[in-house]
């Protein structure tokens, strides 16, 4: 697909008009999350915001979720502890992200990620967020590393991207 064709796509918050039942990315946990009630409950209770990528406002090419998360650093060396608050700091969790099978292989993952980072960056101007973090469960770790997320050493499936770096993208 040429870049020009991507102009047809747009993002919008997940709503009742979207055809969730047809979504299938091939990862069972993500499919059942998106097709079932869990995502609606998350959005309804405002524990997460979900955004879908669509061309017609109905069929879903991909989706991602964002939610606030706290990160507590313990035993920091003094030189760093002086610069960070001595309590959990706010970050933005890119909770789930997936592209449906029919649309895979078209760099839509990159589009989803970039849009998620853009929204996280906009939100960080209002409510402090120090990083965008991800906790991919299935094989997606390499994807995040490709896009410069840094994996934790002791929890290798958890990765983060400093918000200062996202500033460099959109600032």
């Amino acid at each position: 697909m040429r870049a020009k064709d991507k102009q047809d796509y747009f993002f919008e918050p997940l709503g009742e008009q979207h055809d969730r039942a047809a979504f299938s990315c091939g990862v069972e946990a993500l499919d059942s999350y998106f097709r079932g009630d869990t995502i609606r409950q998350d959005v309804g209770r405002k524990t997460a915001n979900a955004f879908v990528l669509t061309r017609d406002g109905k069929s879903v090419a991909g989706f991602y979720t964002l939610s606030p998360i706290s990160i507590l650093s313990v035993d920091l060396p003094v030189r760093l502890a002086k610069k960070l608050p001595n309590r959990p700091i706010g970050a933005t969790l890119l909770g789930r992200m997936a592209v449906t099978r029919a649309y895979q292989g078209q760099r839509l993952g990159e589009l989803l990620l970039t849009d998620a980072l853009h929204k996280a960056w906009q939100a960080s101007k209002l409510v402090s967020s120090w990083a965008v973090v991800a906790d991919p469960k299935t094989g997606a770790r390499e994807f995040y590393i490709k896009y410069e997320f840094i994996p934790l050493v002791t929890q290798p499936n958890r990765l983060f991207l400093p918000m200062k770096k996202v500033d460099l993208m959109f600032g």
Partner: protein
Amino acid sequence: MAVSRARMRKEVPNTARERIDIRLRPQQKASIERAAYLKGLTVTDFIVQHALENAQRTIREHETWTLEQPDAELFAEALMNPSSLGLRLANAVRRHKGSQLHR
């Protein structure tokens, strides 16, 4: 306000119940029954109480990441002094801006 809330509670008592069917080994069940007996709880109360505590802890841990060394230092250092933007992200953002989605 307090009165109306109390009345609301009375009108809509939270008596909804759901079931979970669990299959487990006889020894596992016997252990749970014995532990519940020792605590003076019914088996249901014992299981619900413990599963719920565990669930709440899991959710808490999911909503707060606790970083110890070396991750605490790795994280703090990267936040203070992030590396410069690589080609991947730079290209991604260029394409994103070109796609009219950047609004």
